[in-house]
């Protein structure tokens, strides 16, 4: 259906709508709480402090290296998880809008993208605090995190698109995805340093073949060490975006506006 891709372009052009709705979602989430978005920090801080000191000990790591590593890892991991779990509800939770208002449906994907990404950027401030406290090296290499972050954002948008379609059609997908993300969390170097697995010859493939690891690395490495990630991590990240892009195009083509019948 030709018009589905027109709908995407029309949706993108309606940015005043989805930007407003997305930012409003973030604001309203905290409106009635006394300290507002500070809860995002507190949540993260408690997690990082409790996991950080226990695991640093358990794994024999230097806290001054491990805590920043853990902080940025948790932030980026939460971003990907939210894209899949919350973003997966983009169509389902917009049922009322989709059935009553004649805006192109992809507006609601962008809305969720904005609120999920804004939340991630707010938590990034927590990493800045940690970086200052632990005097992480800062330089031109740090700026390489920007292209990495853009890749991660593209991934987030595509994950939202894919899971919003799948979840509208098959409601089990959300539960499956949440189980899968839990398993991936323990397999992916987030709460343990990658080299612990990489140095164990036989288990190194768990890290190297894990696409999530490379996706994290393109942001994490520049921020932690003021240098680029491994070149093949960038390659994998681009590959992931290409695959997710293809899958979401297929879904848009297959379902298009008919997704409304699945709601």
């Amino acid at each position, binding site marked *: 259906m030709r018009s589905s891709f027109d709908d995407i372009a029309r949706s993108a052009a309606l940015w005043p709508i989805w930007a407003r709705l997305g930012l*409003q979602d973030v604001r309203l989430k905290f409106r009635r709480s006394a300290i507002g978005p500070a809860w995002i920090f507190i949540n993260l801080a408690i997690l990082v402090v409790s996991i950080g000191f226990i695991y640093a000990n358990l794994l024999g790591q230097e806290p001054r290296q491990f805590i920043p590593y853990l902080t940025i890892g948790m932030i980026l991991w939460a971003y990907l998880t939210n894209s899949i779990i919350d973003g997966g509800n983009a169509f389902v939770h917009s049922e009322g809008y*989709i059935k*009553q*208002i*004649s805006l192109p449906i992809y507006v609601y994907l962008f809305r969720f993208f904005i609120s999920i990404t804004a939340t991630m950027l707010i938590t990034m401030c927590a990493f800045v605090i940690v970086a200052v406290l632990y005097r992480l090296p800062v330089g031109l290499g740090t700026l390489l995190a920007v292209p990495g972050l853009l890749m991660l954002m593209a991934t987030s948008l595509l994950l939202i698109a894919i899971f919003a379609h799948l979840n509208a059609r098959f409601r089990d997908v959300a539960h499956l995805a949440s189980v899968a993300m839990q398993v991936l969390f323990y397999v992916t170097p987030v709460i343990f340093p990658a080299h612990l697995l990489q140095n164990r010859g036989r288990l190194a493939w768990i890290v190297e073949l894990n696409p999530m690891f490379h996706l994290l690395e393109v942001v994490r490495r520049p921020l932690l060490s003021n240098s680029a990630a491994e070149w093949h991590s960038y390659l994998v990240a681009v590959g992931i975006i290409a695959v997710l892009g293809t899958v979401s195009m297929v879904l848009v083509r297959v379902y298009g506006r008919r997704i*409304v019948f699945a709601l």
Partner: protein
Amino acid sequence: MAHLHISHVDLEFTVGAERQDTLHSMLRRGLMRHTEQRTVKALQDVSITIAAGERVGLIGHNGAGKSTLLKVMAGIYPPKRGAVAVDGHVCPLFEFVTGFEMEATGWENIRTRALLLGMSPREIDRKIDSIAAFSNLGEFLDIPVRHYSSGMFVRLAFATSTAVDPQILLLDEVMAAGDAVFINSARQRMNDLMLRASVVVFASHSLDVLPSFCDRTILLQKGRVIADGPTAEVVRLYQAPTAVPVT
């Protein structure tokens, strides 16, 4: 000029398949090889052309397909077969409140709702004071709508929704039958809105409102157009069920 053209539109709802598909039901279907999908033919071979300046009523019993047809016109439901060609900005007003957030203030909700109805930010700046004035909520606009009474809430939603300048206005009966709920000023505002639009299509049960607005009326039955003509004639046909051919 705004116009609307629908030709040979079929629309089906698949009950039990697209609505409630689970992996379990798919597995079962795959294994047992017999499907238990049920399709409901919501619209069958509907062809309608509406030109600029026309005000068209839609009547028919519950489930005749009035709301579905409006949603096809609005581009919300894609037809299974047939073509829908619309020229002009379509504004469906099937209800007032989509987009309202309980935690947001009156002002914030006016802006959000107005954007969703297709107003540009500049247009909203221009109209927001008159919307506020009509809602008559004064300082209450500064507080979250959570604290509003239901009457205040309806005033705000109504004031905002009726501020649009649509080319093609699609109304469902809840809105059109506002006369039962709203005071005179609201009714006047609704009339103004319908007169501003270039094309109005409005679905209604209320046969006393319809003739005053619509020269032309379309009668739907079981998803088919069974009469399309001057309102007086179509209403007469509708009220004499024996004259209606049963399909």
